[in-house]
């Protein structure tokens, strides 16, 4: 279960200002039932003073969504619209004594609802219909504008944070490139405006996309995280696992297609693979020579620093994995 503060629990179990507000003259609705949370914020604004006299909410969502909504109403009652517009989602989180990082999107939902309600009062169109820039995340209906605001307001610098604050990228993650571009763009603007240190900013191409994407998926429990690769000791001839992981996997049709490989072709492919790995082995003072290919068994001779090295089994399985990825057939690599 989540580590909710006592205040979150209190505002969830005994929400203040819950229910419909009949005399509301400002209404903001955000989220959708399909996304797992939705909030309808209703405000009663005194026209002469623009003071928010009363606020109520209706929320479909988890504990922190309900608590955040209730906190929002407590925060805005008595404020003028101008004051209310200055509020950020962080104010909601702070009011509750903090939210678990994965639940920050609940506070963002509150912020968005407030903006929407005030826009509604002023007769403006609240751009929650994905017309504010492109719709980035189709799974959760998050547009570019919302991502930009969340990044700017909370100084977000990673894709993981963007997902925690906006839910964008929390589903299929096909929007990864779009999220990345948006995050990098806003971070660059923030650096130019002096709001963010340059080294903190997210830069396109700063990290291998494959690695970042994999990390984002792991964080969300989509795939199991691989063991942290240990840094290779200088003398040990070991193929770092990321060097292998970066090779794109073959299409799923590859294994069957390569079933009809001729022996000659197979040997050539094996040779090629070993050739590709040789620089990494040499770097560590080792070497590897192909002796024979017998069916799916590849016989190799390790030499140099590889001989007697405890890491040689890692090297062997590295070659094996590389062969499987490259040729699409399971090979057994045997040192002779």
């Amino acid at each position, binding site marked *: 279960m989540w580590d909710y503060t006592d205040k979150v629990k209190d505002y969830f179990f005994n929400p203040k200002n819950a229910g419909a507000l009949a005399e509301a003259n400002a209404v903001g609705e955000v989220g959708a039932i399909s996304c797992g949370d939705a*909030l309808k914020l209703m405000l009663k604004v005194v026209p002469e003073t623009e003071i928010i006299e009363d606020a109520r909410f209706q929320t479909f969502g988890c504990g922190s969504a309900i608590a955040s909504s209730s906190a929002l109403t407590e925060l805005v009652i008595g404020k003028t619209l101008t004051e209310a517009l200055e509020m950020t989602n962080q104010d909601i989180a702070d009011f509750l004594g903090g939210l678990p990082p994965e639940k920050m999107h609940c506070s963002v939902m509150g912020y968005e609802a407030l903006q929407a309600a005030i826009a509604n009062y002023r007769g403006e169109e609240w751009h929650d219909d994905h017309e504010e820039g492109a719709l980035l995340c189709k799974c959760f209906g998050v547009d570019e504008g919302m991502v930009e605001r969340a990044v700017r307001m909370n100084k977000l610098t990673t894709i993981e944070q963007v997902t925690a604050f906006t839910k964008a990228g929390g589903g299929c993650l096909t929007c990864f490139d779009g999220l990345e571009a948006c995050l990098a763009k806003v971070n660059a603007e923030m650096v130019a405006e002096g709001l963010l240190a340059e080294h903190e900013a997210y830069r396109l191409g700063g990290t291998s996309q494959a690695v970042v994407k994999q990390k984002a998926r792991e964080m969300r429990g989509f795939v199991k995280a691989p063991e942290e690769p240990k840094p290779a000791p200088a003398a040990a001839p070991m193929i770092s696992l990321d060097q292998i992981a970066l090779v794109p996997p073959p299409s799923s049709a590859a294994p069957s297609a390569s079933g009809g490989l001729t022996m000659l072709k197979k040997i050539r492919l094996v040779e090629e693979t070993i050739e590709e790995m040789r620089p990494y082995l040499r770097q560590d003072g080792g070497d590897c020579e192909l002796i024979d290919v017998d069916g799916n068994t590849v016989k190799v001779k390790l030499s140099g620093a590889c001989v007697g090295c405890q890491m040689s089994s890692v090297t062997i399985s590295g070659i094996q994995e590389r062969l499987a990825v490259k040729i699409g057939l399971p090979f057994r690599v045997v040192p002779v």
Partner: protein
Amino acid sequence: MTPVYLDNNATTRVEPSVVAAMLPFFTEQFGNASSIHAFGAEVGGALKTARRELQALLGAEHDHEIVYTAGGTESDSTAIFSALESLPDRTEIITSKVEHPAILAVCDHLEKTGRARIHRIGVDKAGRLDLDAYRAALSDKVALVTFMWANNETGTIFPVEGLAEMAKAVGALFHTDAVQAVGKVPIDMKSSVIDMLSLSGHKLHGPKGIGALYVRRGTRFKPLIRGGHQERGRRAGTENAPAIVGLGKAAALALQHMEEENTRVKALRDRLEAGIQQRIPNCFVNGDKDDRLPNTCNVAFEYVEGEAILLHLNRAGIAASSGSACTSGSLEPSHVLRAMDIPFTAAHGSIRFSFSRENTDQDVDRVLDVLPGILEKLRDLSPFWAGTNETPKAFKPVYA
């Protein structure tokens, strides 16, 4: 207030007599079963008895068909890797979209690293397997077919016997993740064609950290963990004697209570299910009502979110679980409910109650007592419910 524990598909309480059976093997009979001296011998004898007790629960022909592991997850991994290594000319695996992550994550990894091609067979709205898709995926390239016996979230039972026969017809190995089924439904491996079966101790009132993989005699097998002769070389590592003894005792008790599980426990489940549907509008049961574990009840409540229900239940001393996104840390509802095409409106509000023989009539009363109030309260908060007394939107589930 005594807590009401209705999350037995997550884990069960270890039966006190099981704990008592285990205790001597920590401090008195602590020997290594492999040792030649008296310390080892007495442990060896106890392990043999425990193995026979588990053999009886599975209806296995030979006691050496049981390979002890550290749990269901290890058993699943062992079965998958063993099949791929034993049949090197076959590089495909067939599984379903509703398996436990212990199967799905391994398959994803094998696919990603190019070591196997994975067929993930879908299910219908009641969670029943798409047999046509399965038939179409079968070929002589398939090394392993792995389907769960019973689903952990909905309790839906797959017809594993028939599925296994289809797999055998193309020469593939058949494995079933029976972690939720063992101890709840009768199993007789003697009269089955299933090659491998995974089980876990802590789902049947045994200890955590122990499980087993049944491997039919004569099945081609490669170990996952090497480095010792234990389990006839099929799973190296000093035997976890206390846990194996505990699992044996738990298996004996499960066999003894099998009938109760399918009568009294089932009646409790049915009464809860009927009571909920009587008292609470806009809810329906997930899963195959005709072919389901006797202890599992998965109900979808429309217009509310699962975590909110669980937090209220927890405050009332009732433990259950949810397929909602918010409880898991992911942002999407459970892969099982999504595969069943349960609408998002209801998937987010799905709650699983899972019983065991330790539950009582009072437990059901307690839930029926507090749950309607919780739903009412949360629905009043929900903008989609609108607080009216009428049904907000005509709700005719096609899947109920």
